[in-house]
């Protein structure tokens, strides 16, 4: 977990944009990482991370100093990404015949530093079968060590709902991991299960 000076937060709340810039500098990687893991696209992740900081800046007065600032930011980012995934699905459903997509911005983008290595592909495959809320809960738990209470607060759900979602997510990820590691065996096992009356 990164260490944020409460003084920066207090100054930012008093309207000091320099202090908020320090917070952006300190929190950019966790926020971008969450957005990237959620959206699987560096351009969308960049956009989502920037939007997260804008929303945080505009609503800084609503921030409760008793909570962790990073958890608050991650909560904003997760909600924004969940909305984006929903919109993306809606667009896929309603714009099947769209033939033109806006070309990506030519400004220096995240692709320059982000190489889609083997590790990224594996993480992507592990997370992609999860629902947006399950994905956000998994990222908050395993990347940022947030407690169940913090995840529940960040995702606006109950602690038991978080536990249940994480339980389900672990099963899905174990299944995805098996498929990645042993694709042939998994296929054979699935066929066996399909023929067995017990499954």
């Amino acid at each position, binding site marked *: 977990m990164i260490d944020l000076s409460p003084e920066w937060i207090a100054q930012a709340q008093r309207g000091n944009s320099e202090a908020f810039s320090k917070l952006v500098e300190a929190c*950019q990687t966790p926020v971008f990482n969450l957005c990237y893991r959620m959206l699987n696209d560096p351009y969308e992740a960049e956009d989502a991370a920037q939007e997260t900081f804008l929303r945080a800046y505009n609503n800084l007065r609503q921030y409760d100093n008793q909570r962790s600032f990073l958890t608050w930011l991650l909560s904003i980012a997760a909600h924004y990404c969940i909305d984006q995934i929903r919109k993306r699905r809606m667009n896929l459903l309603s714009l099947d015949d769209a033939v033109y997509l806006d070309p990506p911005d030519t400004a220096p983008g995240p692709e320059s530093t982000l190489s889609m290595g083997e590790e990224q592909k594996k993480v992507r495959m592990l997370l992609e079968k999860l629902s947006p809320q399950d994905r956000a809960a998994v990222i908050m738990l395993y990347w940022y060590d947030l407690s169940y209470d913090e995840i529940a607060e960040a995702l606006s759900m109950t602690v038991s709902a978080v536990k249940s979602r994480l339980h389900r997510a672990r099963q899905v990820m174990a299944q995805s991991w*098996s498929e990645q590691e042993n694709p042939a065996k998994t296929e054979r096992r699935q066929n066996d299960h399909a023929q067995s009356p017990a499954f």
Partner: protein
Amino acid sequence: MTMLNHQPFRDWLFSEEPLDPQDALLLQEHLRSCEECQRQRQAWNGALHFIKNAREVSPAEGFLNRWQERLKAQRLRRQHKLAWVFFGAAAGLAMISLTILGWQVFEALRAPQNLLLFLFLRVASYITIMNSISDYLNIFRALVPGLPVAGLVFFVGFISMISVLWLATYKRLSAVRRIIE
């Protein structure tokens, strides 16, 4: 072994709640005999280890600068929006005022004799007032050389009182009267 027999063990495998010793023993025994659950456990352990060791992805260099630019653009957009709102409100008020004025002009032009009569009477009353002031000034000019200082003060006071009385009378007479039957 059926899916039903596996279920409690699957729940334990994917739960992060600590198991009581008896359940932990049962799970160990089950895992020794069940290949499918062993596979599931290995798969989850592999996935968990991988996730915990996956590195964080950082944004491209200059994220802060790009964010500051975006903040600036957002502020500019808000200012433009605010300016448009004020402009719209002012234009709306101007339109309402023009409509009222236009309506009044239209009404006046529909019956021009009333307007002309009103203007004529107003000009006549101004001329009358100017003539009265001129008469008072002539009397004053003729009297001033022969009057002592005390008489002059008395005269000015008298004229002032008369003026106030005249103004009050004029106001009272020119006010709209209520007709009592």
